[in-house]
């Protein structure tokens, strides 16, 4: 994970306001690489701006929590709270892949390694 970009000013809307003061996500199954996809349409008037943006980001395909956090320019831990709420409401779903269940297979790792060596 790359270090956070240094911001030159404090953001106007603070993270604690965005999550209503909650720091703990309602589920602890979400990590940075968990893939998220939008499942159903939600009434935008009932959502916060960050929730709306998250839904829009995930409506085109699946995105990882880390990517969503980067788009929202919010800390990953704050993004987790937002995403967990939307999953609870049924607007988002996690996408479990074979990769996430078993990890990458040996063959793939070998190919990546070979490729990296070839770059030198």
């Amino acid at each position, binding site marked *: 994970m790359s*270090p*956070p*970009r*240094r*911001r030159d*000013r*404090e*953001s*106007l*809307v*603070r*993270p*604690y*306001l965005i999550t*209503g*003061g909650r*720091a*703990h*996500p309602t589920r602890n199954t979400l990590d*940075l690489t968990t893939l998220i996809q939008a499942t159903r349409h939600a009434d*935008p*008037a009932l959502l916060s*701006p960050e929730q*709306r*943006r998250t839904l*829009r*980001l995930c*409506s*085109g395909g699946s995105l990882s929590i880390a990517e969503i956090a*980067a*788009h929202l320019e919010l*800390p*990953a*831990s*704050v993004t*987790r709270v937002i995403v967990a709420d939307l999953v609870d409401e049924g607007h988002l779903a996690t996408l479990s892949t074979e990769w996430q269940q078993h990890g990458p297979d040996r063959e793939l790792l070998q190919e990546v390694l070979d490729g990296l060596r070839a770059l030198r």
Partner: protein
Amino acid sequence: MVRSAGAAGLTALAVAGAAAIARQRQRITELVREREQHLAELDHLRTKRLPALAESLNGMSSAPVPGPLWREDGTFASESLAELVDVIERIVRATREHTEHSSQRTLTGVLDTVRGLASEQHMAVSDMQHRHDDADVLADLYTIDHAGSQLSRRLRGFAVLFGAWIGQQRSATSLQDILRGAQSQIRDYQRISVSAYSPSTQGDSVGDLGVITRVVEPLVLLVAELLDNAARYSPPYAQVAVGVQHAHNGVAITIDDAGVGMPLEERRRAERLLSKQEIALDEIGDPPRVGFAVVGLLAVRYGLTVSVDAPPLYGGMRAVVFVPNELLTHIEAADESEVRQETATGSAGDEEQSSRARKRTSGGLPKRSRRTRETTAAQPDSAPPEDSDSAAGLAAWQQASESSSAVSVGENENEDPHP
């Protein structure tokens, strides 16, 4: 003959003498009366005029300072006394102004130092929230961040009172972010409910509205002070409702609390402070209560109108902030632009067309899109953005470089490239 002549001379002398004596007597009487007047005048000066002058100069009384007892122009006494009073008044005023200025300079200097440190600390806490991916740490950082936001609001309030720079310049910001930014800065932020969102599909909705750069920070501070007051004067379980409404020639931000209302005395004070152009340090009170003083000064300085009243049959207070059209602008919401990115590549639907058609809103407001990395990435001869963590930035850059075949990517993105 000689004798009679002598007698006549004596008589004449006597008459002349008597007349002189009479004149002198009259003169003496006059002098005595004048002296009595002067003494009375001096006494009046000592016991009435000077104390009244002192009170009026100290701002303790607004009653007019009484004039002299006798207003005979041209007499030495009345002129010199008038001059004396003038001199005293001038000296006191000059001293006061000098003291006020120098204490303001000192305070501004002290304030700058404290603000610098507070801002550094706030920034560090922001960075920590990005760096640590742990909910327990985040919970602690929330507490520090919240305290930092309140501290920063207080410091900016003092800056306004001391006539100093209010703080950082921000780009044009949506009303919703303004209200939520203000909400972030008060202690009871969880009791505030902001309902500024309305779907932007209906063209010129409040959801698209924002304010121009110059008034972003002042408006945030102004609303925050009103929210703080509303939360303070309502029970701890009651919500404070914030809304935005279209009004004639502008929008109105309404802040309603369900409290018991402010005591009459407090409301009088608020009304007085809201209409002031300038506020002396000694008007802030002890302990200092700066809220309405700050709101009043900001409103006057930035062309906003604020009213606070207690509507009957309502309970609680209602504060209304009127933002005139000339301070408003159209904001292209971040989520809207993302949709445009998506639709632009695929089926460029009605969304794109309608947003192009909305270059001017129905209210006649100029449209301005928020400056994000998407636009900064399309600057002249920019290399491909290195920190392209957003696909939108890359797409914008690609679009920009395609649109102008010349080497220099146009400075004005949508206009002809340089010859």
